[in-house]
């Protein structure tokens, strides 16, 4: 019973502070952690990209360029020509997801453990897909797409509009949530050695894998939408 209570407490998203407006707006820990991630990444990016030159780049510049090109290739290789313009957006999303998922290594609650984060990401993802479809096919073509390939498929296609973001959201949330729960259980049972080893799988490997899966599926949806 004590274990269950402790676990429940760990899974709670506590309020970080309250803004004293309209009777108090509670800002939870996830939002604050996300601000920290934004600030950290912003400073890191500014530091890494300062003083870039076109000729004879240094090691830092070469490393950053290689990383960016690799990341864009990773996402861009799945996409057709029409979808390539969304690659920077997806890379930004991948960066956020990657950092958010592996932040558990530093014993910080990952933002993706919060359902709000994954729902927000899934919503943004599906809005992006629909915007891409409308930009490519115009509103008429986009609406006709719901009756594709035959009119009988209309209810299925409308359902798909909600199923896709829901599956994206739940897959990410479920994986990160489950990893967090398992890690907390392991820490309670065996506090030393074993959590360190499992952390490599659940926080690093699974975290990065789920981030890639999320962005990869979004890129596939964009591809389908712009074809």
């Amino acid at each position, binding site marked *: 019973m004590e274990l269950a209570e402790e676990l429940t407490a760990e899974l709670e*998203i506590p309020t970080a502070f309250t803004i004293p407006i309209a009777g108090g707006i509670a800002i939870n820990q996830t939002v604050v952690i996300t601000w920290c991630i934004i600030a950290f990444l912003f400073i890191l990016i500014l530091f890494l990209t300062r003083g870039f030159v076109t000729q004879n780049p240094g090691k830092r510049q070469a490393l950053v360029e290689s990383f960016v090109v690799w990341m864009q290739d990773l996402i861009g290789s799945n996409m057709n020509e029409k979808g390539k313009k969304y690659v920077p957006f997806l890379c930004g999303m991948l960066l956020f997801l990657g950092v958010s998922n592996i932040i558990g290594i530093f014993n910080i609650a990952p933002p993706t453990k919060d359902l709000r984060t994954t729902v927000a990401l899934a919503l943004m993802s599906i809005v992006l897909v629909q915007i891409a479809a409308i930009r490519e096919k115009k509103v008429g073509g986009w609406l006709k797409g719901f009756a594709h390939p035959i009119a009988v498929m209309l209810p299925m296609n409308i359902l798909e509009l909600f199923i896709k973001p829901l599956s994206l959201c739940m897959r990410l949330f479920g994986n990160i949530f489950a990893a967090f729960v398992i890690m907390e259980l392991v820490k309670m049972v065996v506090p030393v050695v074993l959590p360190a080893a499992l952390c490599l799988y659940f926080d690093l490997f699974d975290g990065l894998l789920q981030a890639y899966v999320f962005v990869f599926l979004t890129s596939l949806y964009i591809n389908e939408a712009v074809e």
Partner: protein
Amino acid sequence: MLSFDLVNFICMIINILILIFIAKKFLFGRVNDIIAKRQEEVNDKYATADRAIEEAQNSKREYETQLAEFRKESDERLENARKEAESKKAGILEKAQAEADDIVHAAQTEADHIRNIAGIDRDKEVEELVFDVATRLAGHAINEEASSELYDKFLSQATNSGSGKE
């Protein structure tokens, strides 16, 4: 545990959008810009190199054309000079031949003249000698011994005058 409130949800959307904007603007944007600039510089260098190669080829073609023209002109000049030299040579030879012919002719004329003169003198001497001998033979009684002496004298004089003229 799975609570959901709209304020924090909107905050999360804004946060994610801000982070994506930062990554796009300051990381991917900067890196892509620098790669594009580098590509542009490389393309410029290639274009400059291509232009230089083209200019060099044009210069080479121009040089070869000029060289061919110079060779042609040189050959023409050489041919003209050869023809002129041949012509001058023929003229000089002709002139020299004419002069030589004149000299030879003059020499022959002179020689003939001298020969003629020499012939006349000898004949005169012989004539005078014959006349002298004849005179003596006719004017005096000549014995066999005196006649033989006169005859030898005549032959001796005749031989001397002939060899001296020649």
